[in-house]
């Protein structure tokens, strides 16, 4: 069974600053995918960024980038130039690279507050 651990229940960052959210995972799978999802207050969860385990290059999406360390089973999210709209709960998630459906295992989340 896979586990996903997010050790930072809450974080705060000032607008325009950079913040890094941590995630570690445990799996015996060799092929898998990692995700960061964002859940704003009272709004639906949306995908922020995705990483394929077989790719060494770290994924980036505009202000969002990851630091994927496969050997260490670490998958952190960096948010640059933080904006007030980034305030949300952030979930790290894992799915094995097998099967026809992506069955996500989520971490417990990090609540990020962006302040003026």
């Amino acid at each position: 069974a896979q586990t996903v651990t997010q050790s930072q229940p809450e974080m705060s960052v000032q607008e325009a600053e950079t913040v890094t959210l941590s995630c570690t995972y445990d799996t015996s799978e060799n092929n898998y995918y990692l995700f960061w999802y964002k859940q704003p207050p009272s709004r639906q969860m949306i995908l922020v960024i995705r990483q394929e385990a077989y790719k060494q290059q770290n994924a980036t999406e505009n202000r969002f980038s990851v630091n994927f360390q496969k050997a260490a089973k670490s998958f952190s999210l960096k948010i640059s130039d933080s904006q007030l709209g980034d305030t949300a709960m952030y979930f790290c998630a894992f799915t094995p690279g097998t099967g026809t459906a992506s069955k996500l295992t989520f971490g417990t989340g990090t609540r990020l507050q962006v302040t003026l």
Partner: protein
Amino acid sequence: DAMVIQNPRYQVTQFGKPVTLSCSQTLNHNVMYWYQQKSSQAPKLLFHYYDKDFNNEADTPDNFQSRRPNTSFCFLDIRSPGLGDAAMYLCATSRGGWEGADTQYFGPGTRLTVL
């Protein structure tokens, strides 16, 4: 806009009284998922449908059932809700067939209260 819709957004039921939560999608995705998210906890997958094929998670209680009458709709039935079933229930969809690479699209959730 194509989307995932959940009704109702808030549901109150009594202990032991059956309740049904609804999810619909306009994305024409093959896969539909139901997650349970308790307060301050991670979403937990209950089951999913790939087309008409039902896939239950091993630790999902028998009290939870699901129906998918067509591609667009999926229902979560809780036969005898207990106080411990109070949670946010999230529906999600994905295209399917991508060996785990799918992006899941989530609905806004239904918050269930059990009195």
